[in-house]
C-alpha cells in the first residue's frame, strides 16, 4: 500500500514537471514580449506548438542515420528523467535516492551528448557549428555546475538533493557567502545551459550567433517537438534546482506525506516557478547577446564563483 502511494507521489512529480514545462516557457515568452512592448503569444501557445509539430510530417535528409532519428527521444527522456528526480514539492520520494545532484547533472550531459551528435549527423556546416559551440560551452558550464554541487554538498555533507533540501529548509545552515556565490554561479550556468540571452537567443536563427538552434536546424515535426519539449523541461529543471537548493521552503520534508503538506508543497513549487519565469525574461531584456568568444569569460565567471564558493565554505556561518 505504502509503496503504491509512494510510487504515485513519485509519478506525480514526474508527470507534473512534464505537464507544466510548456506553461513555464509560455510565461517567460509572454513576460518577455510584454517587456518588449509586444502583446506576445498566449500562455498556452507552447502546448499548441508542440501539438502542431507532433502532427506534422517529419522531413529527414537522405543521409541521416538512426542516430538522428533516435536522438530527440533520448534527449527528451534523459531530460525528463533528470527533471523528474529533482525534488519539487516534497523530499524523500520513492526514487529520489536513485540519482543525486551529480547524477542529475550527468543525465543532462547525456542529453547534450545525444543532441550534439544529432547536430553532426547530417553533415551540414551549421550542425557542426552548433555542436562544437555547445560542447565548448558545456565544457565550462558542466564543471561549474559540478563545483556548485561541491559547494552545496560540502556544506550539507551530502549530494542527495532530498537531503540537502531537507537540511536547508530547516534554516540550520544559515546564510553563507559560499551559498550566495553558488547561487550566482547556478544562475549563470542555468542561463548558459538553457540557451538564454546573453549566451544564446532562443528566438534567433541568425547563423553566426546561434548555438542550440544550429544543432537542431534540420529537425522538423515530432522530432522537433521532442527537442522543444526537452528544452522546456530543462528550464523547469533548473528552476526547480534553484528552488530546491536555495529556496526549499514550503516543501514537504521528512517523509511528511499528509495531503496538507503535499498541497502546500505543490502550490509553493508552482509559485516559485512562476516567479522565476517572470524574473528570467526581466533579466534577459536588460542585457545584449554576447559574441561567441566572450562566452568563456561569462561562463568562466560562474566557474570562478563556484570555485570561490567551495573555498569559502569554511567561513561565515550564520551571520
Amino acid at each position, binding site marked *: 500500500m505504502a509503496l503504491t502511494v509512494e510510487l504515485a507521489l513519485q509519478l506525480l512529480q514526474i508527470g507534473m514537471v512534464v505537464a507544466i514545462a510548456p506553461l513555464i516557457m509560455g510565461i517567460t515568452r509572454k513576460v518577455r514580449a510584454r517587456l518588449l512592448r509586444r502583446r506576445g503569444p498566449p500562455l498556452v501557445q507552447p502546448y499548441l506548438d508542440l501539438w502542431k509539430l507532433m502532427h506534422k510530417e517529419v522531413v529527414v535528409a537522405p543521409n541521416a542515420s538512426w*542516430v538522428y532519428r533516435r536522438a530527440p527521444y533520448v534527449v527528451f527522456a534523459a531530460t525528463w528523467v533528470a527533471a523528474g528526480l529533482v525534488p519539487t514539492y516534497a523530499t524523500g520520494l520513492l*526514487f529520489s535516492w536513485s540519482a543525486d545532484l551529480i547524477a542529475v547533472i*550527468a543525465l543532462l550531459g547525456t542529453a547534450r551528448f545525444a543532441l550534439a*551528435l544529432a547536430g553532426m549527423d547530417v553533415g551540414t556546416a551549421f550542425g557542426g557549428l552548433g555542436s562544437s559551440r555547445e560542447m565548448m560551452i558545456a565544457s565550462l558550464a558542466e564543471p561549474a555546475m559540478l563545483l556548485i554541487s561541491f559547494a552545496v554538498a560540502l556544506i550539507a555533507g551530502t549530494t542527495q538533493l532530498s537531503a540537502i533540501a531537507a537540511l536547508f529548509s530547516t534554516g540550520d545552515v544559515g546564510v553563507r557567502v559560499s551559498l550566495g556565490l553558488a547561487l550566482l554561479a547556478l544562475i549563470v550556468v542555468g542561463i548558459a545551459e538553457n540557451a538564454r540571452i546573453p549566451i544564446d537567443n532562443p528566438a534567433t536563427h541568425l547563423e553566426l550567433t546561434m548555438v542550440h538552434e544550429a544543432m537542431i536546424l534540420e529537425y522538423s515535426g515530432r522530432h522537433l517537438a521532442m527537442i522543444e519539449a526537452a528544452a522546456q523541461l530543462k528550464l523547469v529543471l533548473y528552476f526547480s534546482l534553484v528552488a530546491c537548493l536555495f529556496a526549499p521552503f514550503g516543501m514537504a520534508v521528512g517523509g511528511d506525506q499528509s495531503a496538507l503538506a503535499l498541497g502546500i508543497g505543490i502550490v509553493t513549487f508552482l509559485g516559485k516557478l512562476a516567479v522565476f519565469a517572470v524574473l528570467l525574461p526581466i533579466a534577459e531584456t536588460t542585457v545584449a547577446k554576447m559574441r561567441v568568444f566572450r562566452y568563456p569569460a561569462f561562463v568562466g565567471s560562474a566557474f570562478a564563483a563556484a570555485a570561490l564558493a567551495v573555498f569559502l565554505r569554511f567561513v561565515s556561518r550564520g551571520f
Partner: protein
Amino acid sequence: MPEVAIGLWCIAGFLGTGVLAVVLGGRAIATPLVYGTTLVIALAALLLALDVLLGGRPATATVLPIGLPGLGAHFRLDSLSAFFMLVVNFGAAASSLYAIGYGRHEHAPMRVLPFFGPFLAGMNLVLLAADGFSFLLSWEFMSLASWTLVVSHHQVAANIRAGFTYLAMASFGTLCLLLALGLLAAAGGEFTFERMRTATVSESVAATATLLALIGAGSKAGLVPLHVWLPLAHPAAPSHVSALLSGVMTKVGIYGFIRIVFDVVGDFSPWAGLVVVVAGGATAALGVLYAVMQRDLKRLLAYSTVENIGIVFIGLGLALAFRANGQGPAAALALTAALFHVFNHSVFKSLLFFGAGAVLSATGERDMEKLGGLVHRMPQTAVVFLIGCMSIAALPPLNGFVSEWMTFQAILLSPQLPQWGLKFAVPAVGAMLALAAALAGACFVKAFGVVFLSRPRSSAAATAVEVDGFSLTAMLLLAWVCVLAGTLPGFVIDALSPVARELTWSALPAQAGLPWLSIVPIAESRSSYNGLVIFFFLVVSGVMTAVVVHRLASRSTRTSPIWDCGYPLDSPVTQYTSSSFAMPIRRVFGTVLFAVHETVDMPRPGEMRAARFRMRVRDPAWRFLYGPLVRWIMRSAQRLNRLQFLTIRRYLALVFAALIVLMLVVAIWR
C-alpha cells in the same frame, strides 16, 4: 595445485604461444591458431582470477628456484593481484578474439605473433611477482615485449620514433622503481615484498620511495608529464595491441604503484596523498584537453587514456590521504572508485581501440579529417563504438559514470581531512576532474560525430565495409560489459571489497543486498546512485514517448535534401571537421597552454587554388621538459665528441693530467 601455480602455468602458456608462432612461421594458420590459444589461456586465467576474487580465497604464494641467487623468484596471488589479473586477462581475451579476425589484415604477422603471447605473459607476471627482482624483471620484460609490438610496423619512421621514446621512458620508469625498491630492500634486508612490508622505514625513506614509485609507475601508466611516449606508442601498434597497451598495460603501471606504495611501503604521510592527487588532477585535465585537439583517432584515444589515468590517480591519492589519517571507510571508497575506474577504462578503452582498428582496417585511415559517415557502412561497429564513447564520456547509465561518481563522492569527503592543504587542494582537483569529465564529453562527441556521423570525407570512408564476425563479437562483448557494469555497479564494488580491505583495512558496505540494487558508498543520507533505475527510466520514458507520439500523432516521414538554413552545399568539405570542431575549445584553453598556432592561407576572390589551414599544437611537456633535455644531451654529446678527435699528444696530456690529479689527491690524503 595452489592458485598461484595455475597462474604461472597460464603465463608459461602465453610464453609458449610465442614459440608456437615462431615454429609456425608465416603460415596462414598461424594467426587464428596463436590468437585462439591466447584466447583460451586468457579465459583460463580470467576464471582463475574471478575464482580468487569472488571466492574470497586466501593469498597463495610460491617460490621458484630461479631469479636472484639466494632469494628465488617469489610469486603471490592475492586479491589485488587477482583483480588486476581479471582486468588484464579480460582485455587479453577480448583482444585475442578480436585479433582472430583483425590479424588477417596484418602484412607481416611474424612481427606481431611471436611477441603477443610474451607481452601477455609479461603483464601477468608483473601481477604475480612478489619480490623486487622478479617484479622489475617482469616489468621490464613487459615493456620490451610491447616495444617489439610498437615497432612492428617499422617502415613508418614515426613508429620507430615512438618505439624509441617508449622504451627509453619505460626504462627510465624501471630505474626509478629500481631505486625505490633498492631503498626498501635496504630497510628490509631482503628483496621479497614480504620482508619489505614488515620492515619499518624512516619517514624520509618512505617519502623518497613513494615519490620514486610514483614517477616509475606513473611513467608506465602515463602520468603527466611522463606521458609523452603514450600518444606516440599506442597508435603505432596494431589496433588489438593498442587496446592492450592503452586499456591494460597502463593498468599494470597502476598496479605497480598500488603494490609498492599501498602494500610495500605501507605507512606514509598524508602529503604523499597530496602529491598524487595533484598529479592525477593535472593529468586528467591536460590529457583530455590534448585529446580534444587530436585529429588522429588513435592518438585521441591514447590521450584520453592519459586523462583516465589521471582520474584513477586522483582516487589513489585520496585513498592515500584518507588512509594516512586513519579514515578507513573513506580510503576504501576512494580506492574502490579508482579500481572501478581501472576496470571500466580497460573495458571501454579496449572497445574504442577495437573500433578504431575496425575503422582503420575498413578505410585505411586514422586521420579523422578523412573519415565520416561510417554509421551507414559499418552499422554494428558504430553502435558499439557509440556505447564506448558514452561510457568514457561518463554518461549515465553507463559504467564510466559510476566510477567517476564514486571519485566525486570521495572528493566530497575531503572536509574530513585534518590537513588544511588537503582540504583546499582536493576540491581544486575536483574542479579539474569536473573539467576533464566535461571535456571528455566534447572529445567523444567529436570522435563519434566526425568518424561515424556526417558525410564521408574521402572515398575510402565512402566505400568502407563492416568488419568480420570475430572483431564484432569482441566489441559487442565489451559493450555489454559497459552496460552491465553501469547498471549493476554494486556487484563490481562487492567484488572489489577484498582488495579494499587488504589495502585500507576497511571496505565499503556490501552493496548487492541493497534494495533496487542501488549503490550506497557511505550512507544513504549522504549519497546513492542507482544505475539500473536510471537505465530503466530512460528506456521506459524514451520508448513510451516514442510509442505515444507515433500512435497518437504523426508517424509519417519524408526524405528530402538537406535544408541547411537554405544554403545546402553538396561537397562534404563544407562539413565541420575534427579540427574545426575543436576550434572553440582550442581557442579557450589551448592558446597559452599548448602554444596552438593556426595559420589560414585564404585565396583572394577569384583565385582558383584551395584555401589552406595549418595548425600546430605543442605538448607543454615537450616544450618545457623533454625538448630542452634532448637538446642539452645532444649539445653535451657534441661538445664531448671533440674528445674523439684529439691527437695522441693531447690524449697523453689527459692521462698526465689525471695522473697529476691523483698524485695530488695522494699528497693531500690525511
